[in-house]
């Protein structure tokens, strides 16, 4: 750590209810530096950043800005010092316009004090968006009308609307498409040139290597070390994060030979997707790649009965089905793991047991009364099989790490004895070690004859897992690649509409 470091955090410690989340962590960053912070879920990255942004008080340690010790009592105080954080959980207000959200707390007023000058507001917000290269967003629109990835952009626009010295980005790329990620990186570089310190938290190692000047790795609340990307590689970083070698990330797949179980023919939903046809064999993992907004999730939701479709047909084991609700789909043997576990996957205030049983009450109960022994037995088995930690059935879902929460959602669907499993971004926001575990769980399920439709925006995941890969663009299927023909360039080109 040089003396030139503008931000210095020394010996930061923090505990929650007796458990140590951070133990004497030293961290520093220089002006004009992009400093990535990596580590598994629960390593303490977010806690460290929340302390820096004033959202959490620290137990011990000192924070120096420009050599001067500072106290951060509240996020407000941190903002006055020029520290601003964009968290994974959005802080946008859905029923206000984009412009209001961006300029919240600093809306321009007319000569009469307290009366908002709407013209200036919209113009100001537009300028901010233009400055950072996010064009094509109508600032008059309500935030609730935006897609998740556009919401993320607005969140970032809000972060840079004002004088900043330190910008914290917590997993900013989770919901962004490749294209949007490029724009984000361009923005980060632009801000870096203006002398800002950017602290970039991410699971995705390729991103970290591309954008960061230095990478600090935390594990179990302790500093493992700080490296420069040019002097390191992904394997070293994974070792630092996990403390061991992971072995093969992706399982070795054998071509599936089962008969066709799911057939989708010319499935169409007006204004969303059209003419989607594919078939899925027993024991096959079918990848579905596409940029955010290409209609993958909508197709999945329609097959699952969560949304309707206007025309087309779905056959399961040769039988025509038309699920009008998730209930009908579940009883037909279809399961959908949704992309956002917090929003529509888990009931956070309920226990592990309740969450895993949620979709299976019909076979767990007789005359409406739950068979407690059967329930506990089945839940226990899944908790063990999937290695959910801690294996306490009464633990609330909100107390689990992201990776374990994802295992809960997976366990919930396995408990239904589904025959077709649709996985929408099954490893989003999950640490590396759990990711590998989930890949092997998926592989094992396929070996047992499960049909798996794997939707993902992560190319390595699609390439590493699927026996066949479909590509969607603008609501249509634009490509199908057997495992032997699939590679990054082809899939990306197909998804982006570039003719090779």
């Amino acid at each position, binding site marked *: 750590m040089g003396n030139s470091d503008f931000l210095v955090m020394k010996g930061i410690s923090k505990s929650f209810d007796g*458990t140590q989340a951070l133990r004497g962590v030293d961290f520093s960053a220089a002006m004009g530096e992009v400093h990535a912070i990596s580590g598994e879920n*629960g390593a303490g990255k977010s806690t460290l950043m929340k302390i820096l942004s004033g959202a959490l008080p620290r137990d011990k340690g000192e924070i120096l800005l420009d050599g001067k010790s500072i106290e951060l009592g509240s996020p407000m105080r941190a903002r006055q010092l020029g520290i601003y954080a964009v968290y994974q959980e959005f802080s946008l207000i859905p029923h206000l316009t984009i412009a209001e959200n961006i300029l919240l707390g600093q809306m321009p007023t007319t000569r009469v004090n307290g009366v908002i000058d709407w013209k200036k507001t919209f113009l100001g917000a537009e300028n901010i968006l233009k400055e950072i290269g996010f064009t094509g967003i109508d600032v008059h629109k309500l935030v609730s009308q935006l897609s998740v990835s556009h919401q993320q952009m607005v969140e970032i626009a809000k972060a840079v609307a004002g004088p900043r010295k330190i910008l914290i980005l917590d997993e900013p790329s989770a919901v962004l498409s490749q294209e949007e990620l490029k724009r984000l990186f361009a923005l980060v570089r632009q801000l870096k040139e203006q002398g800002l310190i950017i602290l970039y938290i991410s699971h995705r190692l390729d991103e970290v290597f591309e954008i960061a000047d230095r990478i600090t790795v935390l594990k179990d609340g302790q500093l493992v070390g700080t490296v420069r990307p040019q002097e390191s590689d992904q394997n070293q970083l994974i070792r630092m994060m996990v403390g061991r070698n992971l072995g093969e990330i992706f399982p070795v797949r054998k071509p599936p030979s089962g008969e066709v179980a799911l057939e989708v023919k010319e499935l169409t939903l007006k204004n969303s997707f059209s003419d989607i046809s594919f078939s899925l064999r027993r024991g096959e993992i079918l990848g579905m790649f596409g940029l955010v907004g290409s209609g993958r999730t909508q197709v999945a939701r329609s097959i*699952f009965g969560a949304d309707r479709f206007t025309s087309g047909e779905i056959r399961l084991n040769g039988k025509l089905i038309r699920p009008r609700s998730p209930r009908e789909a579940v009883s037909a043997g279809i399961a959908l793991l949704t992309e956002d576990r917090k929003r*529509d996957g888990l009931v956070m*205030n309920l226990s592990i047991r*309740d969450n895993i049983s949620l979709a299976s009450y019909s076979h767990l*109960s007789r005359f409406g009364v739950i068979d407690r022994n059967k329930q506990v037995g089945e839940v226990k088995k899944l908790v063990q099989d999937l290695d959910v930690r*801690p294996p306490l059935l009464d633990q609330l879902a909100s107390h689990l790490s992201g990776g374990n929460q994802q295992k809960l959602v997976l366990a919930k669907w396995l408990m239904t004895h589904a025959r077709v499993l649709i996985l929408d971004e099954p490893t989003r926001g999950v640490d590396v070690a759990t990711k590998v575990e989930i890949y092997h769980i998926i592989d094992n399920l396929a070996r047992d004859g499960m049909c798996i439709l794997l939707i993902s925006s992560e190319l390595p995941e699609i390439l590493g897992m699927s026996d066949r890969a479909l590509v969607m663009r603008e609501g249509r299927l634009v490509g199908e690649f057997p495992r032997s023909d699939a590679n990054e360039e082809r899939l990306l080109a197909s998804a982006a509409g570039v003719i090779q």
Partner: protein
Amino acid sequence: MTNESNVDNQVPSSNIVKKGNRVRNLLLSRGGNRRPNWVNFAFLAAFIILLVVTATMSDVFFTQRNLSNLMRQAVTNGILSLGMLIVILTGGIDLSVGPIVALTAIMVAGFSNQGMPLPLAILVCLGVGTAVGAVNGLFIARFKLQPFIVTLATLGAIRGLVYVYSDVPITPIDPTFRASLGAGMIGPIPISALIMLASYPIVWFFLNRTRSGRAIVAIGGNVEAVRLAGINVTWNIFLAYMLSGLFAALAGVILASRLGISQPSVGAGFELDAIAACVIGGAILGGGGGSTFGTLAGVVALGMIDNLLNLFNVQSYYQQILKGVIILVAVLARRKQR
């Protein structure tokens, strides 16, 4: 993220299900977390201190007569609160229970005066209460209107209906009605109190051990996750309001039998007491928390305060003020635990 780290560090060995600790669990709130919740112990302590103080200051309180009175008075709110709890767990609210109490109280009195057999009259009234709940549920679950607005509308409408049915007080003439439900005792405990006390374990069983009960609890936490799990959300919300109507009717029938007279104005403000009992017992308005036995504690606490103030001859207006303060204190005390 704040909780992730402490979870990873405490992986126990083989003991998957923690048994025992049942009593402790009853005291712990189901809202946010399962660590010992000192607020509940503090409430318990305050409760005991209150009892001791009363016992020393009043020689009437611990007489059998007063205690059975206390129980009888707590019955109405005790039963109403059960229905309210179920509705609050789904993330809703039922403001219409007060008028349902009035409607069923006046109907059971009227029917019995017209010579309808008592059991039949009671059954019809329970059916009427359930039907009103079904109307609430239909608009809320099927047409997705806001519970507050829907039940506010039925609150007004049913109260009007009560006055249409009868604007003079009706005295039930059937003496067995008062003698059995209203004044009857089994040992030292009034029959009506036994009905209430029996309802609590039943509702606990419903909420914890049945399909619909678990669905109702889960709906308040995350309705979309429940829908996507293939559960019939519409039906379960509908069911919750029907149950609330049913319990309100039961409370109305019992109230009529206790008072021996049914006035159209009875039950005004009852919904507030029921909501208060749930909230004191740890329920979270908007869904995602609440416990059956916590609610019972809330009911008993509110009932005792009423009773004590009566014993000390405090005017009922002051009682209302004090109740308001207690609700605020209870909510304030629980605020930090989330």
